[in-house]
């Protein structure tokens, strides 16, 4: 990586504050790191020193009956999920594990990284994103000051929603040191309907119809045949997948009705238990694209626009699949394309009604040559830069990673 200097591993908020205050005074840039599983997202940071938060670890509050958990930013997500699981609870936004697509191990990643990247999974369409579950944070701004925002309760409109506002800022506004999230009971039962052989357009129409039904679908993905095969659904046919979760009698009831609603499309296979869980884990982690280093794009568009986006990429996309009812499109571009596919992907997003696309994997040269995050219209970009300057006037936090931090 770009920075060759020392790595600091403070284990307290005060330690982080001291380091950032020093860096601010010296105008010395820092790369802010958790476990580094998402280091391939955005530009490589140009920093003299690394602020590694892995030692700032530990769950500081967990009250299952209050559905609330606080943890220091460097706490492994796996540790949080294990504790929640002991109490029959989970992180409702089902955070993706970036390890595999980034060429690393599975099961790593910190809560700070999850919130900083606003990382969610298939349940995003029903339960909301990581940002929807952030209740409060303690953070150190680029000014070297400790501030807190939000609280530990769900209903809270006291002041600007800075806690949520830091979600998705990729460590460029402030270094979060402690995070409080809302958790939920893990559903008692899960079942998945899989319809085989649909073309993209019809598949996404089906997903959207299911999302518009009263059956509380909590996962809606379409995997063209190659992706289906890679996700563990053999048969060389596309798979349109709909997940239902909840209390067992409720899941059984809804499964019947949803199957009836979709009966015109031919029979649907049903998956339960471990095979269903494995499928959704594969979808969550974009597993069909693990084990490759071809440029990988993640686009968010209106759900019905997903297939049009892919058609517009004819000849540029090697393979793709859809989550979020069609609105989240994973696109692997041919590695021969000079800009990693940036120009055609961005043009396709614009042509299909807008949204955004981010290069989440690509070699350093491509990531340096293009803008991995969606570029914004001038007025919005200027506002983002002003916001950045208010949090980090010296520009020391993850410089270069996001457009506003250039």
């Amino acid at each position, binding site marked *: 990586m770009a920075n060759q200097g020392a790595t600091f591993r403070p284990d307290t908020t005060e330690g982080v504050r*001291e*380091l950032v*205050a*020093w860096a601010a*005074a*010296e105008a*010395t840039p820092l790369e802010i790191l958790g476990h580094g599983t998402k280091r391939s997202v955005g530009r490589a940071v140009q920093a003299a*020193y690394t602020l590694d938060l892995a030692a700032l670890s530990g769950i500081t509050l967990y009250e299952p*009956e*209050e559905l*609330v958990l606080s943890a220091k930013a460097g706490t492994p997500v796996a540790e949080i999920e294990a504790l929640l699981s002991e109490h029959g609870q989970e992180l409702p936004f089902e955070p993706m594990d970036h390890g595999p697509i980034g060429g690393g191990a599975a099961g790593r990643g910190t809560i700070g990284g999850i919130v900083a990247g*606003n990382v969610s999974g298939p349940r995003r369409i029903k339960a909301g*994103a990581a940002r*929807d579950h952030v209740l409060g944070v303690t953070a150190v*701004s680029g000014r070297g000051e400790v*501030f*807190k925002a939000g*609280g*530990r*309760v769900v*209903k*809270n*409109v*006291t*002041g*600007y*929603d*800075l806690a*949520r*506002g830091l*979600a*998705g*800022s990729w460590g460029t506004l402030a270094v979060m040191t402690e995070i409080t999230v809302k958790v939920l*009971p893990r559903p*008692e039962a899960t079942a998945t309907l899989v319809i085989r052989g649909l073309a993209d357009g019809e598949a996404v129409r089906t997903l959207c119809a299911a999302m*518009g*039904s*009263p*059956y509380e679908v909590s996962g809606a993905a379409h995997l063209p045949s190659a992706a289906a095969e890679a996700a563990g659904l053999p048969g060389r046919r596309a798979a349109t997948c709909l997940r239902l979760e909840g*209390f067992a*009698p*409720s899941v059984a*009831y*809804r499964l019947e009705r949803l199957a009836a609603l979709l009966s015109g499309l031919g029979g649907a296979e049903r998956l339960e238990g471990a095979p269903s869980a494995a499928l959704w884990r594969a979808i969550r982690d974009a597993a069909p694209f693990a084990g490759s280093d071809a440029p990988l794009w993640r686009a968010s*568009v*209106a*759900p*019905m626009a997903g297939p049009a986006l892919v058609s517009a990429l004819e000849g540029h996309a090697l393979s793709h699949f859809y989550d979020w009812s069609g609105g989240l499109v994973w696109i692997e571009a041919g590695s021969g394309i000079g800009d990693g596919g940036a120009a055609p992907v961005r043009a396709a997003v614009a042509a299909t009604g*807008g949204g*955004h696309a981010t290069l989440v994997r690509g070699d350093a040269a491509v990531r340096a040559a293009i803008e991995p*995050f*969606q570029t914004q219209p001038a*007025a*919005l970009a200027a*506002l*983002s830069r002003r*916001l950045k300057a*208010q*949090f980090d*006037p010296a520009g020391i936090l993850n410089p270069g990673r996001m457009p506003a931090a250039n």
Partner: protein
Amino acid sequence: MTRLAMPKADEGVLARRGEIAEALRAIVGTEWVVDHPDGLRPFESDGLTAYRQTPLVVALPENTAEVQAILRYCSGSGIRVVPRGSGTSLSGGSLPLADAVLLVMSRFNRILEIDFENRAVTVQPGVTNLNITNAVADRGFYYAPDPSSQIACSIGGNVAENSGGVHCLKYGITTNNILGLEMVLVDGEVIRLGGKHLDAEGYDLLALMTGSEGLLGVVTEVTVRILQAPETARAVLLGFPSSEDGGQCVAEIIAAGIIPGGMEMMDRPAIHAAEDYVRAGYPRDVEALLIVELDGPKGEVDFLLDRVEQIGRANRASYVRVSQSETERQLFWAGRKAAFPAVGRISPDYYCMDGTIPRKALPAVLHRMRELSGQYGLLVANVFHAGDGNLHPLICYDANKPGELEAAEAFGADILRLCVEVGGVLTGEHGVGVEKRDLMPAMFSETDLMQQQRVKCAFDPDQLLNPGKVFPVLHRCAELGRMHVHRGQMPFPDLPRF
């Protein structure tokens, strides 16, 4: 009326009132500017009627271009602007300022696009919350956040206040249900955030805008997510001999993995007031009454209702009644929904508070509230969104008795400080506005508040939009921007310096 320090009016602006009205007329047309004293009177206050202020002048733009032109003119001439939707804010968010243009958004009342397939509806900000649901109800859809004021409040106001409602326990508050916004910055720049897709590219400005109380920009278009209405809804009434039992029941319902569509609690004074008013059939001999509504697919609702009933009985519920028909379910709610006016019948005036606490603190907070009620000699009736710990104590007082309003306000402030002490917050859904502005230091340090105000500086460096709201002390942006660096005090002496 109590005294409230607002930013000092700009004499120069006051003197230019006629000229300003003329300039606004040139933008929006003669009939859409109000500057006659009689015409200004209806705009003197919002839902927090204890505070009144005649605005400098009222302008009612009809489209984004007019808002742009007004803001360009105002920011160019150093004139303050207070945005207003329907004026139902309970925290004085849309309270006018003597030297500010009141920008009333009620003519922005069109539904622009209904997209059932993508489950997205785009509307102008003056559309009422309920009219969004009305526009999609024929296809079985609805917009989930449902403030009790939904027939009147505007979606723009909902965004600005991040409003909640009874169904927010399960379906989230405004911020969880907004997909996109168009807004105009104070300098007239138009910005679009989000759209029909999920999640922001770049910083989550939607999160910052939602709940920003009109301080960051004027919302001119809103895209919301709609949901298919649940197949059915049924409710159960559970009466308890103590609020501890009621609170424990709430905790156990949640612990059982059940997230009801709504879970509301009332204490004895609220139960009596409501029952006297609407005869919902509430038991009078209980200390706490819970309404638990289960909504969703039929197969689920019947099953869960059973479980809730069992949990209620296990927690000493002395009264259990399950709705047997839609009419009966509506009746259960009629009492709760009429709780505010019902309290209004037993007291000349009441003051509605809005703190949130961790659920487990409920019994202790209720206990302390009763003690305070004795000390202040003012009755308090409690209704709350029990599922998420959002309290609405209604403090009864008589504004005609000297000192009672002040006592009610002091009592209210004590309650909110208590909420913060037990780990909660000053406001769960009504906003800070002017009402809780001076209590902000009870929850936030000076550093916390300064960082929030720096966000304001990124949007509105001259602090012309809705000043005097939310923040107790207004710092100038130049002052906030200064970095206090202490070179030489290096905590890492071994590090090479650059």
